């Protein structure tokens, strides 16, 4: 337990210098929310970007040769991977708290309200987006390092943001058939919640297992 705490402390120390990226992601998510006039989109977008934040400890590790530091520490690779995924969950909680708070404020600004059902939906989708983003990129980062692996972290973001921004662009292009993402989720909320949580849990567990296998065999 002490080792996990020590590893978490070390990992967060590597994450701290990237606070400017946080601000940039908040700004970008705000832009998406304003485009769609909905705090809901802020929540989803920020949670996807929060997933990319989890790549930064790998950048720091590569830049400063910290792979050797980790290898010299009196701990094992299993604990290192476990601690990194505990960090994933902690960052989710912190990011979600920021996202939901700001999302509610944005909705109030557009004279909308996020009721309990919508908050639950937002939670489920945010969890799914975040865990898919982190879950997808992390094994690649372990396998290829940050420089080569970082391209993979943008794939889920690009795909999901295209889907999120389609309603706005559809309306701007004045298409007859516009995709109403909100309505689709809203009409099947319970199913969406269950599927989102389930997908998120599966994504993060699969990612953890893959990272575990990859890192235990990796030559540093």
């Amino acid at each position, binding site marked *: 337990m002490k080792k996990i705490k020590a590893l978490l402390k*070390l990992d967060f120390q590597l994450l701290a210098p990237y606070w400017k990226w946080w601000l940039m992601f908040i700004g970008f998510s705000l832009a998406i929310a304003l485009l769609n006039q909905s705090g809901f989109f802020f929540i989803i977008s920020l949670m996807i970007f929060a997933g990319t934040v989890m790549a930064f400890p790998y950048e720091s590790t590569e830049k400063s040769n910290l792979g050797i530091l980790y290898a010299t520490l009196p701990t*094992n690779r299993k604990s290192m991977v476990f601690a990194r995924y505990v960090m994933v969950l902690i960052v989710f909680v912190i990011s979600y708290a920021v996202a939901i708070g700001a999302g509610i404020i944005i909705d109030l600004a557009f004279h909308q309200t996020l009721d309990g059902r919508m908050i639950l939906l937002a939670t489920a989708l945010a969890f799914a987006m975040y865990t898919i983003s982190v879950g997808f990129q992390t094994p690649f980062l372990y396998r290829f390092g940050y420089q080569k692996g970082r391209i993979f972290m943008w794939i889920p973001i690009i795909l999901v943001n295209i889907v999120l921004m389609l309603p706005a662009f559809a309306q701007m292009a004045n298409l007859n058939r516009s995709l109403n993402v909100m309505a689709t989720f809203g009409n099947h909320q319970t199913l969406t919640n269950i599927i989102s949580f389930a997908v998120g849990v599966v994504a993060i567990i699969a990612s953890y297992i893959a990272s575990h296998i990859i890192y235990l065999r990796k030559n540093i």
Partner: protein
Amino acid sequence: MEYAIEIKNLKKKFGKFGVDDVSFALPKGYIMGFVGKNGAGKTTTIKSILNMLIRDSGEVKIFGKDNLLHEADVKRKIGIVMDSPFFEENWTLIRTGKALKPFYPDWDNDLFMKMLSEFSLDPKKKIKELSRGMKMKIMISCAMAHDPDLLILDEPTSGLDAVARDELMSILKKFISNENKSILFSTHITSDLEKIADYITFIDDGKIIHSDTKDNLLEKYVVVKGGLGLLTAEQKSLIIGYDESRVNFDGIVAMEKLAQLPNSIVTEACTMDELVVRFNKGGGIQ
């Protein structure tokens, strides 16, 4: 006899590099110089000891414990210095110590700060602001602050000036004055070996050529010189690192094979320099 490091039949291949059937042992309380030219396999061996490289086969024990099965226990007692620093470049020296402290129950922060002071290192300076010699000193400070029983240094003097190298050698001598402490350091600088090593292990092309006490090795071989044409082809094959100029030849030969060479050859006592250079050149029936 207790051993700080025991390596048996270590094999690790990756790409063009690797080590093959490496075996040697460092008795507790001694210093071993691990010698070989660039690309010989020194760093590969050290990384295999630290589990940075996952070995293909073989056994590595540190103080009698397998380095894979007891990884955390083993590393708690090892201090490591590499040829380049491995700390976050924007950390200050104080922060570096704080980052490492939670991992070591025996971390002595007073000792850490004392070492920084003795090395004239400003604790508020960042890692990226340090010179090559200073970076080596901060690595030494971090390595020694948790009271390790084994220091492993990979080319620690590479890129250092003579004064800095001498300082490092003094630190290592002081460390080893405790008979429970051991040191393994890799180098291709022979003067480092002559100053402090008790044992020498030669590695070349991924294989161990020799591993013995420094005194035994120096007594085991002798430098031979003579005129060209003095030796038969068979006699030349006995000479390690055989080299010839227009009129003379030289090399080293094992003492037990000296009798097979002509009486007229000149012999001289072997130095560490000669041993390293000649072993690297190869040849001789070893």
